[in-house]
């Protein structure tokens, strides 16, 4: 039986008005620290708007939601915003069933998250 350790990759793309955090792979209990680090790195860019691109996320559980809600709350306190864009099917599913689309700013694409 092969190993199936969860893998999460991320890159941060700073821009003039917004910073995009691209995340790929699995956000679970094992990779939660990596996802937190990705989001902290994005926030450190200082941009008023931090967009998290979840298009290439193949798995995400409630631990991912917990991280998103935490950075969303921190950003709001600092007068900044976190926007979720590029949702994969699993991300869309958990945001839909939990109703968190009402809390998190969710956009269909990075372009729309940047311009609205």
């Amino acid at each position: 039986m092969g190993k199936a350790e969860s893998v999460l990759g991320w890159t941060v793309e700073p821009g003039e008005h917004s910073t995009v955090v691209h995340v790929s792979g699995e956000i679970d209990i094992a990779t939660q620290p990596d996802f937190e680090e990705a989001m902290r790195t994005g926030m450190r860019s200082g941009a008023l708007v931090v967009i998290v691109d979840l298009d290439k996320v193949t798995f995400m559980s409630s631990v991912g939601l917990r991280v998103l809600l935490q950075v969303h709350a921190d950003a709001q306190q600092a007068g900044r915003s976190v926007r979720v864009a590029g949702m994969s099917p699993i991300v869309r599913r958990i945001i839909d069933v939990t109703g968190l689309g009402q809390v998190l700013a969710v956009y269909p694409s990075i372009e729309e998250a940047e311009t609205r």
Partner: protein
Amino acid sequence: MPDDPNSVLPAPALRDWASSLPSFAAEVVSQTDTSRPHIYTRMPAMAEHVGLIRAQLTGWAGRLGLTAVQRQDVVLAVDEAASNAVEHAYPSTPGTVTIFAAHTRSGDAVRVIVSDEGLWRPPPADPGFRGRGLAMMELVAEVFRLMSGPGGTTVVLGWSLPA
């Protein structure tokens, strides 16, 4: 089981495990059809093993005729249950989490049981991960039952196959 002469008896290890569970979960095991594709596995309750549990469930769920959303929900709910065991069951000693997934005898539904032999601690006042993990299972599973006691925590999850 004696009322069904064609029933396939579960392997002894499965029977022993089932007898250690709360009665509602033991009953679920006795009403499954282990002659069809099923999973019965035990893993160290460690974060790096949860991905392997998901991979096994993904393979199994893909053979059942579930909808794409149901397959996703099965993997998500089992991940939440297993993560809960990893995070909370064994604060100081190593332990294991057991996964059993099978068709019901009637063939029109599937059941998954996730059990550990660790501690139960009540959810903290902060509605953090634990609360959200339980809420997620409740949202995506058609059947969700959880029981905790001195012997550990047992979660039963269920879905109906599309007609």
